[in-house]
Each structure stands twice: as C-alpha cells, then as structure tokens.
C-alpha cells in the first residue's frame, strides 16, 4: 500500500433525496474522521442511511451539503459537484470497493476478474499484484475457474482481490457478507482484518451483523441518517 496519509473527513455531511415534493434526509449532519489504517464498521437497520453514507465517503455520490476532505484536500464543493469523470479518477486512484453481490464477470476466469481493473487503469508497480493477491487470499488454486464454479465465499475473496489489485488506500465494503453463511462471513471479515493489519489498508465496512462489526477498531451506528460511535 502507499505510504501516503489518506484520511477522510466529513463535516456536517448531508444527503437529501426527494420523494415527490417530500425531502428525505438519508444522511443527516454526519461528521466523522477516518484515519489512514483505520478499520471501522457501520451498523444500523435497513433504511438508516449507512449505505448512503458509505457511497458518499467512497465518492460514489455527491452530498447535498457539508464538507468532505480526502487526505486533507477539500473535495466536495456544494456550488460545483464533481463530475462523474472526476469522481471516477478519485475512485480509481484511492478506493477499492466490494459489494454484497460480488459482481464478478461470469465469462472471465478468477484471474481475469482480478486483473480487470488494470485494463482501465494501472498504478505503477502493480504488474504481479493479481498473482500475489490470489496467493494471499488463498485463491491461486482457483485462478482458472469461472465464477460459476466457485463458492460464494470464494467469489467474495476474488472480489476483494479485484478491489485490491490497484493498491487502493481505502477499501469500502458494503455488506460484504450479506450473501454468505456465518462461517464464510467470519472468514471474509478475517481477510479484511488481515489486510488492515498487515498492509495498512483503511477499511470501511457496512454491515447489519453486530458480531462481525465488532472485529473493527471502531464501530459506528446509523439511525435515521445520523451517526454515533459505539464504545
């Protein structure tokens, strides 16, 4: 991982959706700081705004108001939201994403899926990253298999390798164990924990599973769009 100190700071972050003429505040006045190397988890019931928050923190969406800093640099400007192109640039240089549904390309092998991000953007020194990651995630013996030929847990490992192949500073995991059984879920969280400890990767994980969330260094709870840290 890069030795840069990439932190995320949100100040009075707000995201409001319109349902007809009614304003729905999905994220309401959230302020938080995530430091380089943090492993944080966000829990909360459905509709509490945790996915909206992770999308804002991961630059998948523009907030309605508030301030957002990445590595000390102010990124969000309310007067001029970032274009999709600008968001993509930030995303591919800094973030890795994993999702509940894995979203692997079914026609590509495990290795090809992991290497896919390099087709679009490649950081220097990532030539052998895919091979290393598959080994690290104990998936190298499955590298020529198609996603349909491996288990859910293995698919999520592949998705993690894909997210990591361009050496991101921050990994965003939105319900990464949502489609897995308890045993596989624990394994995936353990993988995230190891990446955080061994490689210094910042991990932001959204989950509804409190047991898994406890593996993080810091745990937050979202309710009605507002956040609080759980001690």
């Amino acid at each position, binding site marked *: 991982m890069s030795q840069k100190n990439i932190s995320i700071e949100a100040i009075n972050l707000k995201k409001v959706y319109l349902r007809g003429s009614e304003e729905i505040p999905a994220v309401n006045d959230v302020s938080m700081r995530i430091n380089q190397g943090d492993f944080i988890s966000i829990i909360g019931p459905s509709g509490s705004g945790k996915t909206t928050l992770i999308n804002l923190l991961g630059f998948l969406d523009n907030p309605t108001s508030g301030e957002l800093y990445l590595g000390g640099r102010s990124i969000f400007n309310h007067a001029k939201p970032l274009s999709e*192109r600008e968001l993509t640039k930030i*995303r591919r240089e800094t973030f890795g994403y994993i999702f509940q549904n894995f979203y692997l390309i079914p026609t590509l092998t495990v290795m090809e899926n992991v290497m896919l991000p390099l087709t679009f953007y490649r950081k220097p020194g990532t030539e052998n990253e895919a091979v290393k990651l598959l080994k690290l995630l104990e998936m190298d013996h499955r590298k020529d298999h198609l996603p349909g030929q491996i288990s859910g847990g293995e698919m999520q490992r592949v998705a993690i390798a894909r997210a990591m192949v361009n050496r991101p500073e921050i990994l965003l995991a939105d319900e990464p164990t949502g489609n897995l059984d308890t045993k596989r879920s624990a394994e995936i969280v353990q993988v995230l924990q190891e990446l955080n400890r061994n490689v210094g990767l910042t991990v932001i994980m959204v989950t509804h599973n409190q047991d898994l969330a406890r593996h993080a260094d810091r745990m937050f709870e979202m309710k009605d769009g507002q956040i609080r840290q759980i001690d």
Partner: protein
Amino acid sequence: MITKFQVAYKNLLRKRVRSLLTLIGIALSAWVLVSLLGFNHGYETSLNKDIDNMGFELMLMAKGCPYEAATMMLKGGTGLKYIKESFMEDIAKEPEVEKAFPMLMSAVFDPNKGESGGIAGYFGVEAKSFAELKPSLKFRQGGWFTDVNAYEAVMGYEAAELEQREVGDKILMPDKNVEFKVVGVLERTGTQDDGTIFVPLKTLQKIFGRPDELTTIGIKLKKGVDSTRFEEKLYKLPDVQVVSLTQVKQTIMGLISTAKVMVLSIAIIAILIAMVGVINTILTSVWERFQEIGILKTIGAMPWDIFKLIWIETLILCTTGGILGIILALILSRVTDLVIRYVLPYAPSGGLVLIDLKLVLITMAAILCIGLLSGLYPAWKAGRIMPLEAIRGEVGR
C-alpha cells in the same frame, strides 16, 4: 493482463444463440451486398468482353429490323431482315472504315434439339475475314473452310459437344436437308460462338436462296474515328439501320437496371434489418449487464472505456459476420450466377458475379461502417450508466 477485446469477445459468448443469430443476420446482409456488387461488376465486365469479342463497333442491318435484334444476334436469334451485299463494297471504300465483315444468320427448326425441338442457328461467314475479325478464336481440331462454296462447317465447342461431332463427321441441316462436313471444331471461348455452327457465306446464301443478301455487316472503324458521325453517313444508304455496340450495351444495361434496382433495394433492406438486429442485441446485452457496467466504473473504467468495450463487441460481430458473408458469397457465387441468369432477360456469356479483392474490401468497409454506426447508440448509453444507479439496481434507462 486482460484486454478490452478479450472482455468484449468473452461477453459475446455469454449468450451464444443470440450472438450467433445476430452474426447470421450480418453474414446474410454481407452476402447479399457483396453478391450484388459482384453482379454489377461482373455483368458489365462480361458484357464488355462479349462486345469486344464481336470484333467490330457498328452493325449495319435492314431497316425495320427490331432494335432488340441486336440483342438477339448476340444470342444467335432469328427473325432478321436482309440488306444488299453490294453495300459491303460501298462501306469498305469509306476512309473511316478499317474493315467490313459480311454475315448471314439463318435459323432452322431442329426437331432433335432439346426435348421438344429448338432453333439451330447457322452463321454464314467468310473464313478469311472472320478469322481476322476474331484472332482469338482457336481450333481444337481442324481449321477453316477449304473453299468459299464448300459444304463444310466449323462448329463451336458446345455445338460440337451437343451434336457429338468431330472433324470428318457429317452434320445435317434440318429442314433444308443439306449435309455439311465438319472441318473444324473451335476451342471454348465462353461466348455465344461456342454454340454456333459456322458455314461459308456463299453456301448459306445459296441454301436459303439469298445470293446477294446479308443480315448484317460488321464494321470495324479506324482508330480515332467518331462513330456517331460515321453512323450518320451510313444512314444515307437506303433502308438500313445502324446499331452501335455501345448502344447495344446501353440497351442491355437498361433492361437489367430494373432488376438491379430491385436487388439493391433488397440489399439495403437486408442491411437495415441487420443493423437493427445489431443495435437490439448490443442494447439488450447492455441492459442485462447494467449493474456489471456500473461496477466496471467503480473499478476505474471511464465512460470512454465502457463506450469502447461495447463498440468492440459490435465490431467483433460485424467483422465476423462480414467475413462469413463474403466467404458465403464466394462459395455460392456460381449459384447466384445461375439464379440471376434465370431471372434476367439477357445475360452475357462470362461470369455474372465477379468478386475481387477490391470488392471484398469495399464490402468489409461498408459492413464495418454500418457496424460502427449501429454500436454508437448502445455504446453511448452504456457509457452514461452511473455506478451508483447500477449498485442500487435502479434502472435509470
């Protein structure tokens, strides 16, 4: 490293049947297109070759002779009127004329030809002048007539094959009950000469009771002579009409132009259908992968990358379909030739569908252009998919 091409190619394999059907649609369009262009090219080339093989530029014939007679003559037809042989001398004296060739065509009904009989054409020529006129004619056996009044015949390749005659055999002119000795059999020329029986002009005039008459005088002009001007001069002769072979060509091309327009329309419709098929296939594939495309954006793909990915899929389909269509057209060109020959009022003797490298390249370029155009909209739509909408599963279409 995996390339965009590999990603695009593997995606097409995801729905094999759909991709295959689209491919077939493109291949059929390419086949129609290349065959049509090949026909346009081949027909004109063969017609020019036929006319060049005539060896002269103008034909003088009797007035009132139907204009289409020129076409019929090319096919060895019947029903012609006659002109005086003395015109030959007058024409030969003209300074513009390099050579004039007398010809008498006659036809008799042959009950043994085909299943219910048919017309057998005899061509009365002067051996010396006819050989000068067509230096490309070569003998498989024997040679020209030994005397201008001899009862001898030279048979075209197909005529000899049909009648199963060789040099030394006899052939009987049906109806007239006259026997000819075969003194020569020609090599295959690929023209109507293959099916013709040549006999000495004087002999044929005698048999048909037309000692001083001809059906046609072929006129070869000196180089640089204005044929239109000379035509006007010829019209001073009584009761004649002049047919220039350029005119013949134009007439024939006019006759087939309707067929050409029809086939061209079919080709355009086929291409449009293929185009819609490509758009439909790619667009459906884009919608089906809506979330996947959004995820590609989260892992670093720019809108232009997605655009290229989808465009490559279109190009793979169109290039493969185009190549298959061209191969199909090359393999089936003989069948296409036969079908067109059956449909058209007149077809020259050479190949009607001529597919050369230039034509193949033009067709491929056309198919690729159409492919690129067809891919524009789906690729543009895919490039605009927002990752957040995809992740949420919102169909922001």
